[in-house]
């Protein structure tokens, strides 16, 4: 056989990748039972591979704690697969689907939200609906808190289970910036007075895109249209005030807007280096945690803009071909338990706000959520009330494309 025919023969299966794989069809994983007690029974002894972003040592430690608890309580082993980007997990699921692997998937649970969820759901890469089958899901009181059922305006339809909350939070070095700007117009004035001390992450990083959406909500003549799909409106007219604003802002940004940090963590690092004096994050407790970890100045303070800021919920989901679905459900359920949620919210552990509804908890359970001491870098709890809903995802796509078109070339 010459090399060429050999290559052709080997390429063939790739061109018809939906052909069932040789090994994957051999075993049939038992279906997940209906009764929760049976789910727990099936989960016992399973090893759950949880793919979650591993860029934060405090989060990693919390996940390590969850793994210990789950082993003790339910006999389920949890392995934290640390990712630098959720896209790596998505890639693997797509490759497995292409190869016809329908019940032997290597990923059991994935930390996800927003566009990644929308994409995986659209391409039928998720298992479910499962969220309402988790006993602890009721503690989120979904009827009163619809945000646990929607992910960037898309209904989750039970294909992911809520885990924590995020809100766009600004932070500044109080020594350098005693009175930080409270809205977008003030931000422009401030940037003019302090050139090179503010920037936002490179679009389409989700934090960079969030800044665009936040600015658009404030600057658009009628923000109500943002709840509709972008196609129903004249995108150019609605977004024109945003581009005027950015054209005015960019010359006063860090590096004159000619270069952008790649991500929120890099933004934080630039704050720590003193290059920036004002920045923002999606995790309200991150500034305080970063001060404790010696990454930011002790003078760091957090706040939200006067008109409120964008907020959303982050979730966990199970890939359609996960091998240990029962174990993954037991883990997702434990993540919603008052014990796990209270520890997660503890600023000394992680500081990620809970998704549980306090009214559904017993007084003893509620007590665990009380904040022990005030950390000056931390956002006061009442500030988190001013939550703006996310625009329809189509606006984000339109903004990202237009931004790249305008600013991503020399």
């Amino acid at each position: 056989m010459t090399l060429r025919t050999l290559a052709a023969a080997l390429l063939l299966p790739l061109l018809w990748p939906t052909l069932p794989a040789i090994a994957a069809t051999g075993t049939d994983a038992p279906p997940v039972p209906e009764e929760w007690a049976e789910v727990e029974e099936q989960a016992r002894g399973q090893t759950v591979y949880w793919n979650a972003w591993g860029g934060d040592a405090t989060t990693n430690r919390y996940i390590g704690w969850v793994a210990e608890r789950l082993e003790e309580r339910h006999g389920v082993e949890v392995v934290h697969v640390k990712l630098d980007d959720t896209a790596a997990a998505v890639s693997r699921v797509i490759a497995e689907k292409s190869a016809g692997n329908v019940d032997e998937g290597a990923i059991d649970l994935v930390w996800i939200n927003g566009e990644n969820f929308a994409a995986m759901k659209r391409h039928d890469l998720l298992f479910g609906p499962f969220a309402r089958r988790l006993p602890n899901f009721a503690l989120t009181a979904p009827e009163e808190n619809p945000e646990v059922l929607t992910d960037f305006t898309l209904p989750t339809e039970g294909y992911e289970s809520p885990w924590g909350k995020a809100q766009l939070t600004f932070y500044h070095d109080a020594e350098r910036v005693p009175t930080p700007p409270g809205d977008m117009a003030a931000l422009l004035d401030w940037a003019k007075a302090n050139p090179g001390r503010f920037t936002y992450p490179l679009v389409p990083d989700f934090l960079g895109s969030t800044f665009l959406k936040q600015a658009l909500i404030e600057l658009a003549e009628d923000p109500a249209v943002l709840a509709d799909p972008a196609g129903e409106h004249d995108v150019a007219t609605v977004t024109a005030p945003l581009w005027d604003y950015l054209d005015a802002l960019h010359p006063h940004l860090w590096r004159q807007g000619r270069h952008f940090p790649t991500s929120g963590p890099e933004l934080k690092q630039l704050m720590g280096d003193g290059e920036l004096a004002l920045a923002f994050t999606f995790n309200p407790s991150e500034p305080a945690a970063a001060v404790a970890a010696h990454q930011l100045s002790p003078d760091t303070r957090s706040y939200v803009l006067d008109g409120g800021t964008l907020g959303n919920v982050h979730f966990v989901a199970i890939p359609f071909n996960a091998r240990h679905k029962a174990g993954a459900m037991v883990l997702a359920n434990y993540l919603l338990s008052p014990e796990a949620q209270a520890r997660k919210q503890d600023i000394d552990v992680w500081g990620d706000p809970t998704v549980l509804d306090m009214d559904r908890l017993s007084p003893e359970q509620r007590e665990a959520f009380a904040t022990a001491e005030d950390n000056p870098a931390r956002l006061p709890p009442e500030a988190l009330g001013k939550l703006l809903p996310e625009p329809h995802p189509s606006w984000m796509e339109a903004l990202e494309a237009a931004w790249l078109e305008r600013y991503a070339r020399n």
Partner: protein
Amino acid sequence: MPVFRPGIRLIPRLTVLLLILPVTAGLGGVLAPAFGWLPALGGQAWTLAPWQALWQAPGLADMLRLSLLTGLVSTLVALAIVMLFLGAFLETPLFRLVRRLLSPLLAVPHAAAAIALAFLLAPSGWASRLASPRPSGWTRPPDYLFPGDPDGLALIAGLVLKEVPFLLLMSLAALPQCRAHERLMVARALGYGRVNAFAKAVLPGLYPLIRLPVYAVIAFATSTVEVAIILGPSTPPSLAVAVVRWLNDPDLALRFQASAGALLQLGVTALALLLWWGGECLVRRLLAGWLEGGGRHRGETLGRLLGGGLTGLTIVLLGASLGGLALWSLAAYWPFPAAWPSPMTLATWREAADTALGPLGHTASIGLGSTLLSVVLVIGCLEAETLRRRPLRPGAQLILYLPLLVPPVAFLYGLVQLQAQLGLAAGWTAVTLGHSLFVLPYVFLSLAESYRRLDPRWGQIAAALGASRAGIFWRVRLPMLTAPIAVAAAVGFAVSVGQYLPTLLLGAGRLATLTTEAVSLASGGDRRLTAVYALGQLALPALGFLLAIGLPRFLFRHRRQLLT
């Protein structure tokens, strides 16, 4: 020996068979989606739409220019530095000192070197801190655009810094093969100055031996992702970075455009190689007169100054970068413009020590496994060449080098699909085989020329004395090649240690290595932890290089002629 010859002859076929499946799978994983075929994402028709989308990507022309220029310029500068240094200092005490300093620096992973250099030269970096508040007058970091400058100068600097040790090591392994010492002595005896003697008598013999490593450098420099993300411009980035962004975009439809981009990247790398090859021909033609012109001392001082100065600068920059990294690993909060972290703490190291033991073991075992497999296969292939008296077929060589040329992020998708299709469980075996795919080409190009140039008359003499084929291989050829083999193995080990995506994707993330930990932590932006892991990542391959240099010295302490 009847077993030896057929056995060795089988190895090239075995190697190609082992490689062809993953390489075609990897390439197929790029090719099919580039033309619209990816049923898992609803791509069921062959179309040119991904190429049209790619063509309309904002800033594409800048991306191409950036990839091509930074790749070629950085290779040229690195090669010039190495050659000037060899010319000015070969066989001097300074040479031995620099060799000892630079070789372990080869082990610095690319991403770690880039992070370290960025910290050294950024406006809030170590250099600027040392000069602040006096004499610079800065109490806050200034706002100049470096790294990340639109011309890619910072990117070029980072690449040069990493390629100089690599090319130097490759040259060192090749020098004895081209009889540099004898050539130098002849030229010096004819009255040529040191630099002139090297340039006119040694270089024409040396360059063909290091041509493949130079090509590998070009391929790497035009397609690097991790270095370009850290040091390169962002609006727009180089093509390889843009491809990775598209592949990682939550909008899965962009994966079609990304696959087309990966193929375009392959084209850019091929174009860079072609341009370089054209440059080689041109230089050969233009310099023929100069070579034979008889000038003995022209440019002697300039060459020495440049060779010494540029090499010194490289060592200082690399050393200072790593020094900065070491300081960060000990820092608590370290604000601008403090030149030293205060107080210093071991907390970060302690934290890492608790969790790093498992990853350390995985890193070492995967690295040793893939290096051993690669070295055995490569030696087998090269020995088969010797038996057949002709090199591997060009097709086979292309298969060998393809993993280096296609951006790994695109290539790996097809590999993972293959793994799933074959039912190969994600784990140590899959990861080690996957690493071998990237280790083998480096081992091959590190070793090939030295192996091919080994004087066949040694074997003939041994045969005349009655030694069998196997005996010649085991007792004459292999011992004479110990030094280059050890270096090639060290390079291979370093390549394995640095792999991120193959480890993550083929192991389904179940095998944590120092690199997977380092990269995922680096995405969180804590420079302290990143520094600790980067230094750990550096330590293992550095150990490998020390062994590679020290082991032959120890084995042949009574056979000094076998050493350089």
